[in-house]
């Protein structure tokens, strides 16, 4: 299989370390001079840009968290004047305030470069026709994938999400060979293809799927089901978007594009660095970003890292399949959901008590979100009509907050399972191992 950028993806470890060290020094100097937040943090720690001689000094630098992004809402972490920013993306934050990221033209080129590397890993090239079925909009999935396909030189069909039958009909008519979407949406597409009885008319070769956790078993199942090759992609809007890492045809972990992202694995409690192949929290540093470069961003994603050279010839480090989160964030249909958002929505209504439980199920292949809310005497009505109205009102408030359709289920007081007096807020029935 081909490699999009052999010079960068197959470097020797020494060359990579040299490149990363040079870029890290530049990045630290840049944020020290251009981002007040980092300058203050470094000054508090008695750290100057000159103290960072290379990636071996990464431990000296301060962490960045999602809370820092929120506190600096909207543009506080930008390192360039607004005139240099050509695009904004945003994702949901913990309290309803979105997390905003800004890109310069060069940042967008970098992003397209990374996505082109991913597509090449999946065996796709300029002869392919690729449907992008991530949501287009503030979410990084749609546009990020889109420009990557254009950069590759392939033909992009910007489907976005929604009409699955239309997607399948176009897949047949255009002889589509590649598809980028969430794993759960791919499963749904497979079901609809089977329902329509058109499996033998599909020319699909490869799919790239990410933005939500899935299992190796699910990946293999979908490959067999559609007779395709499915690839795992990783990304997060804070650092860039989809395309931070991707797995190759050997599926032995995702190759992270180390010339742009410096990975570390830490113990989420002690914050100590962990060795290769030990699971911990992934921490990423932007090495070559202009718009909003982040130092040591705590992703909260749990994984391990390996520096062994892969059979595909790439020398870049690989991230093992993600094992969960070190916080309570849920990823539902590619959307980040925090229990605290549901709580905020409930508290915004006078009629409800914040006694709730979030239940995530995978029905068929789509994630379903149900929120149980305890019925309190204060707002209990003896008319079904009123209770149904209340359910709708709660569902609407939650949808406004998290952007996902939610089923609300009213339950009896104190019926939500409690352990040691503390209610269990989240029941995730999806299986990811």
């Amino acid at each position, binding site marked *: 299989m081909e490699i999009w950028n052999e010079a960068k993806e197959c470097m020797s470890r020494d060359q990579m370390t040299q490149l990363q060290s040079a870029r890290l020094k530049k990045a630290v100097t840049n944020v020290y001079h251009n981002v007040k937040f980092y300058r203050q943090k470094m000054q508090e720690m008695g750290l100057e840009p000159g103290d960072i001689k290379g990636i071996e000094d990464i431990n000296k630098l301060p962490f960045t968290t999602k809370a820092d992004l929120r506190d600096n809402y909207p543009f506080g972490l930008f390192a360039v004047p607004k005139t240099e920013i050509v695009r904004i993306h945003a994702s949901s934050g913990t309290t309803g305030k979105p997390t905003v990221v800004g890109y310069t033209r060069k940042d967008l080129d970098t992003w397209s470069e990374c996505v082109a590397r991913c597509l090449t890993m999946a065996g796709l090239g300029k002869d392919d026709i690729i449907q992008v079925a991530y949501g287009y909009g503030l979410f990084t999935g749609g546009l990020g994938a889109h420009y990557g396909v254009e950069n590759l030189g392939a033909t992009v069909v910007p489907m976005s999400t929604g009409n699955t039958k239309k997607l399948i009909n176009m897949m047949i008519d255009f002889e589509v060979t590649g598809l980028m979407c969430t794993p759960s949406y791919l499963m749904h597409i497979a079901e609809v293809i089977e329902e329509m009885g058109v499996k033998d008319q599909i020319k699909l070769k490869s799919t790239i799927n990410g933005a939500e956790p899935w299992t190796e078993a699910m990946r293999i199942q979908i490959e067999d089901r559609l007779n395709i090759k499915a690839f795992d992609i990783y990304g997060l809007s804070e650092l860039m978007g989809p395309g931070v890492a991707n797995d190759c045809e050997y599926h032995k972990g995702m190759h992270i594009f180390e010339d742009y992202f410096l990975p570390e694995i830490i113990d989420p409690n002690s914050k100590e660095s962990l060795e290769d192949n030990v699971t911990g929290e992934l921490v990423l540093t932007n090495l070559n970003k202009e718009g909003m470069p982040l130092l040591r961003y705590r992703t909260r994603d749990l994984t391990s890292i390996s520096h062994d050279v892969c059979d595909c010839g790439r020398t870049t480090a690989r991230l093992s399949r993600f094992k969960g989160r070190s916080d309570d964030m849920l990823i539902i249909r590619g959307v980040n959901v925090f229990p605290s958002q549901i709580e905020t929505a409930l508290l915004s209504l006078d009629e409800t008590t914040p006694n709730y439980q979030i239940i995530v199920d995978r029905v068929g292949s789509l994630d379903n979100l149900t929120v149980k809310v305890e019925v309190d*005497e204060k707002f*209990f009505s003896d*008319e079904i009509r009123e209770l149904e109205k209340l359910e709708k009102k709660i569902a609407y408030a939650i949808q406004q907050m998290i952007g996902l359709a939610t089923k609300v289920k009213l339950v009896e007081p104190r019926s939500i399972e409690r352990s040691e007096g503390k209610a269990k807020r989240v029941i995730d029935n999806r299986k990811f191992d």
Partner: protein
Amino acid sequence: MALKQLSVFLENREGRLEDLFQVFEANNIEIHSFSLAESSEYGILRLIVSNPEIAKEELRAVDFSASLTDVVAVRLPGGFDSLKSVTDAVTSEYNIEYMYVLSTEKDKQAIVFKIKNVEEVEKSLEEKGFTLIN
């Protein structure tokens, strides 16, 4: 004086009705009549009982959502054939929300219904010669 109906929220879960009746039994509460309204996920049990205040407190003590609702209870002088005379007497801008039977005993037939302006409706029924049950 309106009649106090006991309203209880019930999840569609096995054993919940049994739990409820156990509370009644333990507190010597008699049921005169009831009606169960249901949706796919839950139901509302509406009851006319001997001691609604105590029933409500005892149910709340074991985590039921229970409340008291004012309803109109009226005898039907000519049995159920005279239902129309009741609806005619309820000249109101409001609709009857729900209605169920309180008694089928001969010459003592009676119904219960919920409406928004209880006092006004009761007054009007009494003026027209109906007997209310409190």
